[in-house]
């Protein structure tokens, strides 16, 4: 069996949690799991990857060309070592989705997106039509390039002690450069991987109410904040909070949907949550049909009182 390569997602300081779920999927594809850390000043990331259980080797390419995580340069680095691998896995996050298809195309192989289960090393399950159907698909290519839906696999734990091998970095493509980046910082957990998600819909009515009503509850539960597409489109919440088919896919222990009707596209992003609570005034809201606990109530009264009851 050939080795399996995981391309690590990181910000040059931290190894992102999505990488740990991807390593779990990788371990189901083959025995020898290698992790590529292509970064700039990312020694800490490489060390963190080496401590993940099941990782046999960390390949670390460190150079300024990787500072911004540009798809062109990262692809070139993956291709340099790709011939050693039968599987190349990326997390199905904005980071992985940006790069994986480039790698697949240049290897002249198909890519399997958002894989939720490894049936056999060449057979995979993945949701299609916003999760309304699950396809079982077989890759006919020699190399399988896969993006892994993080909610389908538990994060791999600590306890590894892999060797870190330095790689020569590729040259800059010269075609793309980062002008600037704005990433929200704070104590709130990231949506992907959060244990609790408090999510709001259009019923919140304004950006001000969205914050005033939901932030205290998220703070009390140590949760992340999310939103329906309707709430994002209305400008109540930032784009990267959007949960659903075309936004983020989450599977927390507790998902609290506040004033969200539950369009199929939204459900596609949260249906794997362990416990779903829905608070909505409309008894007919489709969200109630998937909620473990439904509370038909005015959210402007129910959420503050829930907050003080916790």
């Amino acid at each position, binding site marked *: 069996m050939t080795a399996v390569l995981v391309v690590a997602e990181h910000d040059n300081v931290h190894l992102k949690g999505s990488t740990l779920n991807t390593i779990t999927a990788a371990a189901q594809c083959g025995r020898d799991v290698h992790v590529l850390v292509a970064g700039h000043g990312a020694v800490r990331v490489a060390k963190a990857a080496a401590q993940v259980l099941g990782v046999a080797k960390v390949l670390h390419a460190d150079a300024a060309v990787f500072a911004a995580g*540009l798809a062109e340069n990262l692809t070139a680095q993956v291709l340099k070592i790709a011939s050693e691998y039968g599987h190349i896995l990326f997390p199905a996050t904005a980071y992985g989705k940006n790069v994986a298809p*480039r790698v697949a195309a240049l290897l002249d192989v198909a890519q399997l997106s958002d894989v939720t289960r490894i049936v056999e090393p060449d057979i995979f399950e993945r949701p299609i039509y916003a999760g309304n159907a699950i*396809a079982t698909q*077989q890759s006919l290519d020699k190399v399988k390039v896969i993006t892994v839906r993080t909610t389908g696999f538990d994060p791999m734990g600590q306890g590894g002690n892999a060797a870190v091998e330095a790689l020569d970095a590729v040259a800059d493509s010269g075609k793309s*450069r980062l002008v600037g980046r704005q990433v929200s910082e704070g104590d709130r957990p990231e949506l992907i991987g959060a244990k609790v998600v408090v999510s709001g819909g259009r019923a919140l009515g304004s950006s001000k109410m969205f914050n005033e009503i939901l932030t205290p509850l998220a703070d009390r539960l140590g949760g992340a904040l999310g939103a329906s597409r309707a709430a994002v489109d209305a400008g109540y919440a930032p*784009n990267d909070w959007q949960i659903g088919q*075309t936004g*983020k896919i989450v599977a927390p222990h507790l998902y609290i949907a506040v004033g969200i009707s539950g369009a199929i596209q939204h459900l596609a992003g949260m249906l794997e949550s362990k416990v779903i609570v829905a608070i909505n005034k409309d008894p007919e809201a489709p969200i109630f049909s998937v909620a473990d606990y439904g509370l038909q109530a005015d959210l402007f009264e129910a959420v503050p009182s829930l907050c003080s009851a916790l």
Partner: protein
Amino acid sequence: MKALVAVKRVVDYNVKVRVKSDGSGVDVANAKMSMNPFDEIAVEEAVRLKEQGVLSEVIAVSCGVAQCQEVLRTAMAMGADRAILVESAEELQPLAVAKLLKALIDKEHPHLVILGKQAIDDDCNQTGQMLAALADLPQATFASKVEIVDGRAQVTREIDGGFETLSIALPAVVTTDLRLNEPRYVTLPNIMKAKRKSVEILGPAHLAVDIAPRIRTLGVSEPPRRAAGIQVADVGTLVAKLKNEARVI
């Protein structure tokens, strides 16, 4: 400056698809078909760039069955100048579509290629990135703002936790995210006008592209259903259930 915009014909956004009872696929036989919503955003962006005087021509292209001409007519009613259909009754997977589009890049030499980030049927999110790689072009995926400045594209793109801005050399590939723009409604006069615009029809063989599928679908099943939950009477009951029954707080 010329732009190529790729549009896919998919089951309409509002249709709830059903898995066929024999598990061989999804029943789309009589479903309403429309342009993939992300591709509408791509057409809108190209047309706006033309209206700003940045682009001189917008070419809409689709790969698939003969009925894809309908979405090409829609693209032209929105403002695309002409259209190309690569007609094939075979299943076209993202790698095959990317190769077909690459062949069209070689033929048309566009400065900008705009595609939706993802089709809402197979949810792959691959074609734009694959095309960029095959054509050796820089890419800016998940775009929420596109400007052409000094012969480069300055693109703001959505990333986990926020956004970033890239400056990429032209020609380049851009894929659209939801908030790039709000596509216009097509008007009747524009629909009539679009009927007079040209659709060039090619076959994969014309472009010398191998479209053989690389992924075989073995079966399609319904997703597991969540068991119906319960309605709670008040906040106090909810808290008690979460503490004692679900044990999540």
